């Protein structure tokens, strides 16, 4: 802010801004005093808005902005003065400033010339049209997603075939790194969750089947559920949340910093270096994690069976052998590599779609997780239909 040069101002004087309007001869004078700064702008703004624009009775009346009493001024204050002055000017008063120091004058002139700049008009859309527009965009978006994902699957498959032909191009370090991050480090959480869900399902099964005297069959239910559905679904959802989002964030931030573009110009294919190791790591890790999830689900069921049914370990194992066979186990396991491909592809594709801003990164990470989980469940439903069709 600008202070009046070489003038001692008492603090109270400087703080209290104000103005009065008077008629002196044929001149309407607005006498401004105090600090016209942004801190006081609200108060001044409402007071100035209440002020009525003087209407000159004859054309030879003039206006004057007397700012000799102003101790401090900044752009907000200058803008308020300028707004008043141009309103007076518009009503037919020729208005000028009086009592401005050199520095005040520069500021006021600057505000005057800048204030006249034309502003762009924001186009307002009809809300109904907007709604229709959004709907169309959302629907075409779904179709575009399908096309993009299919195209990406093709690209990655081509990359995979290239890699088979030239195995030395495979990034072993990267593959092992992602195997560690997506696989090994997910072991504790997946083990715990599957164990708990197995136990909960067993307890609920026993409670619900007891009125029919069929509580021993709860073991069959838990065994089949755990092997066919719960193991793979829970694991896939956890991995989509843990690793799918991580893939998007990693690749997305590389995209933001133009690292992907740099790779392309150096003749490095991001599919080979970034996507394939991640997808393949998931394809290896997810079946292993699913196996772990299956076992932990059964273990959770076993502990709860001991608790509520009093089944000891040996008889629980006997019952398991009666209830399930290898087919049930395979019906769950067969889905794991497919789910891994979906999670890996969606995660990497969303990462590559990230644009400049951090907001875009957040949006794509969210959509990667949502899409991956959604597609995994669709996959599960398709497999359920298919498997029941072939009688497994």
């Amino acid at each position, binding site marked *: 802010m600008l202070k009046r040069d070489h003038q001692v101002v008492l603090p109270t004087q400087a703080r209290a801004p104000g103005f009065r309007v008077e008629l002196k001869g044929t001149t309407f004078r607005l006498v401004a005093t105090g600090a016209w700064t942004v801190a006081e702008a609200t108060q001044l703004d409402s007071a100035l808005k209440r002020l009525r624009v003087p209407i000159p009775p004859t054309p030879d009346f003039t206006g004057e902005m007397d700012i000799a009493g102003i101790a401090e001024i900044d752009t907000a204050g200058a803008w308020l003065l300028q707004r008043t002055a141009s309103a007076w000017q518009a009503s037919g008063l020729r208005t000028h400033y009086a009592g401005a120091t050199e520095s005040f004058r520069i500021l006021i002139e*600057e505000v005057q010339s800048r204030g006249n700049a034309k502003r762009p008009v924001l186009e307002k859309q009809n809300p109904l049209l907007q709604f229709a527009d959004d709907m169309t965009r959302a629907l075409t978006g779904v179709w575009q997603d399908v096309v993009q994902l299919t195209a990406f699957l093709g690209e990655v498959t081509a990359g995979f075939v290239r890699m088979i032909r030239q195995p030395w191009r495979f990034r072993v370090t990267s593959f092992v790194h992602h195997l560690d991050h997506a696989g090994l480090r997910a072991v504790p959480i997946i083990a715990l969750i599957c164990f708990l869900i197995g136990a909960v399902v067993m307890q609920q099964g026993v409670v619900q089947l007891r009125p029919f005297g069929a509580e021993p069959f709860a073991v069959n239910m838990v065994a089949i559920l755990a092997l066919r559905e719960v193991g793979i679904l829970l694991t896939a959802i956890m991995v989509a949340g843990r690793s799918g989002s991580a893939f998007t964030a990693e690749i997305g931030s590389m995209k933001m910093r133009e690292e992907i573009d740099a790779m392309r110009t150096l003749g490095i294919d991001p599919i080979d270096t970034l996507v394939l190791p991640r997808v393949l790591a998931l394809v290896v890790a997810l079946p292993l994690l699913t196996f772990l999830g299956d076992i932990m689900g059964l273990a959770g069921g076993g502990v709860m069976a001991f608790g509520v049914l009093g089944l000891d370990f040996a008889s629980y194992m006997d019952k398991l052998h009666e209830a399930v066979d290898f087919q049930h186990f395979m019906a769950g396991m067969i889905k794991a590599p497919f789910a891994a491909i979906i999670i890996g592809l969606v995660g990497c594709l969303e990462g590559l779609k990230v644009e400049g801003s951090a907001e875009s990164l957040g949006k794509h990470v969210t959509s990667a997780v949502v899409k991956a989980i959604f597609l995994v469940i669709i996959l599960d439903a398709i497999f359920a239909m298919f498997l029941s069709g072939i009688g497994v």
Partner: protein
Amino acid sequence: MIFESGREVVIRVRGLAKSFGSNRIWTSLDLDVFRGEILAIVGGSGQGKSVLMRVITGLEKPDAGDVGLFGHNAKTLSPQDRLTIEKRWGILFQDGALFSSLTVLQNIQVPMREHLKLPQAMMDDLAFLKLTMVGLPPDAAYKFPSELSGGMRKRAGLARALALDPEIVFLDEPTAGLDPIGASDFDHLIRKLQQTLGLTVYMVTHDLDTIFTVADRVAVLADKKIVRTGSPSELQHHPNHPWIKEYFCGERARAASPGQRPRIPA
């Protein structure tokens, strides 16, 4: 208020020391910033130019020493007083540091919204005013930072720094990454804003052209302290220090020096 040889000292730094790990960047650093001047901080890389700005603005804590802000010691300020002082300065970070989820206009309004209760129409008008003052076209107002070029982002960042009409602006490498025309425009802009708004400008820069055209005073960081301050021509004609000699009398400096290029009048 502190005065020295008739000029008000707005920032006074005394005995500042800072180290990162085993790397001591300053041992005892003294600096005064006077009201209304354009001060350029120069120094080789790793001398802590940006860190000094961060220490003064309170983003980083020094290991020892005092920072005086408008006559108050930064160490003894209550959070309330600190906020009042923070409202009196604006900072332009290297890449503008605009909030990416807000439009340029909203970015400029953030400080107003945070610290003052102004009617929306007035905030819009003031933000437009600041926008045009820093030389952005009006249609940049509704764009997001990611849609702007580097130079425009810097200008928008400056507009945000100026939103509350600060007394001091800190500029971190204001002309880095701009083309010569854009950089020269920015020099003019800094001088003009300094004149119109009565600003004190503290700028960290490498740009010899900027130093010779707009800086009133240069402070040189070397040997873990400020080795010298003085006007650009003073430093050029009497370097007295190997680094200053190399910097101000090197090939690039000769090409940029006032003999070759007119100074923007103060």
